C-alpha cells in the first residue's frame, strides 16, 4: 500500500462496452504491495482523484474498469495508451478469498462487475465452482461475461431489456437460480438499489454473502470521515468497501441514502 500517488503509464486500453473501458498499468507487487480482490485504488488524472475498484490482478499488472458517467470518468475515457495517471493504494477491506472447493454465487450489476471479475478470477483458480450473474441494461453493456466464461465460470447473462440472456433485473435472475440451486457463499457488487434487492433475497435464502459498497471518497485512508456510514460510523475506505451480510444489516443507510462531497444526504 502506498499513500502518495505512484505515476504509471497506461499500457493497454480495452473498450469493453460503449460506456466502459478497461485500463491496464504495471504494478510492482513487491514494492507497491499486492492487492486482494475487492480492494480499490485512488486514480489521479492530475485534475481530480477518485476511487476505482481493482478489476484485474495480473502478473505485476493491475487493471481498472471505468464507466463514463461524469466529468472525471469521461476524462479517463479520453486517455490514450502511454498516458500517465497517478495511483495510490490499494485500499480497503477486500473480499474474503479463502474459499476452496465451494459452490459460489457472484452477482455483478453494470460496472459492479469490475471487482466481481477480480474475486471470481481468483476463486476459480482455487477450485471453486462459480455461478456468475452478470447483469447490464442491454447486451452490449455486458461486462467481463465472456472472459469469465472462458476462465470456467458458469455465467448467467441478464439484461434489463432482454437483448441477451435472461430478461430482467439481477434480482429476478438470482431468484430464478435459487429455485434450483443453493450456494455456500455469495459476492455482490452493483448499484445499491440492486444490492439491496439481492441482499433481501440472499438473506431469505440463508446464504451468507459479501457486498461491495460505494460512498463519496476524499482521503481513502480513513481520516477525513467523508465516507462514514450510519449507524455504526464505519468508513467505506477502511472497514469497507466490502462488508459481510451481518454487517450490512447494521448499515442503516444501505439502500436508503448517501452523502455528497459536502456531506449533504441525498
Amino acid at each position, binding site marked *: 500500500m*502506498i*499513500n*502518495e*500517488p505512484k*505515476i504509471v503509464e497506461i499500457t493497454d486500453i480495452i473498450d469493453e462496452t460503449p460506456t466502459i473501458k478497461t485500463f491496464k498499468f504495471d504494478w510492482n507487487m513487491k514494492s507497491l504491495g499486492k492487492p486482494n480482490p475487492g480492494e480499490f485504488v*485512488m486514480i*489521479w488524472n*492530475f*485534475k*481530480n*482523484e*477518485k476511487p476505482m475498484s481493482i478489476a484485474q490482478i495480473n502478473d505485476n499488472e493491475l487493471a481498472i474498469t471505468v464507466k463514463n458517467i461524469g466529468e472525471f470518468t469521461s476524462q479517463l475515457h479520453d486517455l490514450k495508451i502511454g498516458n*500517465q495517471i*497517478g495511483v495510490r493504494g490499494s485500499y480497503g477491506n477486500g473480499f474474503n478469498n479463502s474459499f476452496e472447493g465451494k459452490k459460489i454465487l457472484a452477482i455483478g450489476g453494470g460496472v459492479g462487475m469490475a471487482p466481481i471479475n477480480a474475486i471470481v478470477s481468483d476463486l476459480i483458480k482455487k477450485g471453486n465452482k462459480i455461478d456468475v450473474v452478470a447483469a447490464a441494461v442491454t447486451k452490449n453493456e455486458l461486462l467481463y461475461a465472456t472472459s469469465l466464461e472462458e476462465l470456467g465460470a458458469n455465467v448467467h447473462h441478464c439484461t434489463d431489456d432482454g437483448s441477451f440472456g435472461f430478461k430482467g433485473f439481477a434480482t429476478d435472475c438470482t431468484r430464478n437460480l435459487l429455485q434450483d440451486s443453493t450456494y455456500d457463499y455469495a459476492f455482490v457488487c452493483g448499484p445499491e438499489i440492486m444490492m439491496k434487492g439481492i441482499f433481501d433475497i440472499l438473506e431469505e435464502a440463508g446464504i451468507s454473502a459479501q457486498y461491495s459498497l460505494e460512498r463519496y*471518497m*476524499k*482521503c*481513502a*485512508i*480513513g*481520516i*477525513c*470521515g*467523508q465516507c*462514514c*456510514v*450510519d*449507524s*455504526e*460510523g*464505519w*468508513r467505506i475506505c477502511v472497514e469497507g468497501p466490502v462488508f459481510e451480510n451481518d454487517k450490512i444489516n447494521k448499515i442503516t443507510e444501505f439502500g436508503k441514502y448517501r*452523502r*455528497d*462531497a*459536502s*456531506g*449533504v*444526504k441525498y
Partner: protein
Amino acid sequence: MLKTNICGVEFRNPLMLAAGIMGSNASSMNWILKSGAGGVVSKSFSLNSHPGYVNPTTVAVEGGIINAIGLSNPGVANFKEELEKIERKNSVVIASIYGATPDEFSSLVCEVQELVDMIELNISCPHAMDGYGASIGQDCNLSHTIVSAAKDASDVPIIAKLTPNVTDITEIAKTCEDAGADCLSLINTLGPGMKINIDVARPVLSNKFGGMSGRSIKPIAISNVYSVYESVDIPLIGVGGIYNWEDVVEFIYAGARAVQIGTAIMDEGVEVFDHINEGLERFMTEKGFSSIDDMVGLAHREL
C-alpha cells in the same frame, strides 16, 4: 483517575477526537466515544454547506500527511441533525465552527450551543479560503473580534484553536484569552506544507498547499503548548502527532489538561483511544499520580 476538568466540563479521560477526523457524522463520533475517547470535536462546519477542495485532498509525507480537505461540511442546519444524535451521556461533545465574520460565528454559536458542551472556534485552518481559518488566527485584531463575538453569544465555554503558523503564538494566545476565550486548543495543522510529485512535476494536492499533521509535528506542538502555558492562565488542550500514552504524558507535562487525537486514527485505528487510556493509567499508577491535575505543566518546574 483519568478524569480531567476543563472550564467546569468534566471529561472521563483526557482524550478527545480532533476536529476534522471522522467527525462529520454522529455515527462515527459515537463510534469514537465507544472506543474510549472522553470527548469528540466535530468536523468544523459553517452556516452554509461547502464541498471543500477537489481531490487529491490528502497525501502522505514523512511522519504524517498533508491535507487540504477545504472545510467541507453540509452546513449548520444539516449538521445539527448529526449533533442531536451524538450520545452525550458521560461524554463531552464539542462543536467546531468556522466562518469569516463575527456575525457568522455568533450565529453558529446560537444555533448549536444547546446541543453541545463546548464550542471550538476554527481560526487556524492553514488551507482555508481567504478570510477564513488561519487568516483570522494569524491576526491579533481579527482573532480578538471573532473570539469576542463568539464568547458574547455563548453560554457554553469557548475554545479558540490556534495555528502554529505565526511568528509568535503566545501573542495570539494572549489576545484570545483577553477576548474571553475560556480555553485554547493547539495546534492546528502545520505549515502549510507541499508535496510535489517529481514524475509529473506538480504539487499533488489540488490546492497545492496543505496542513501537516501526524507524528512529525509533535515537537512543534509540544513547544507551542509549553510556551503558551507560560503566557496565559486559561486551560490548554494539546493537539498534534499524538500516537501513544507517552505522547499524551509529554503534552500534559508541557501544560495541557487534555489532548485531541487525529492522524493517529489513520495508522492505529479507533483502538488508539483505549490503548492510550490503558497505558496512561498504568503510567500514573507506577509513578504514583492520583489525577491528571497533578501532572499538568510538570516540565515547567525549576529544579
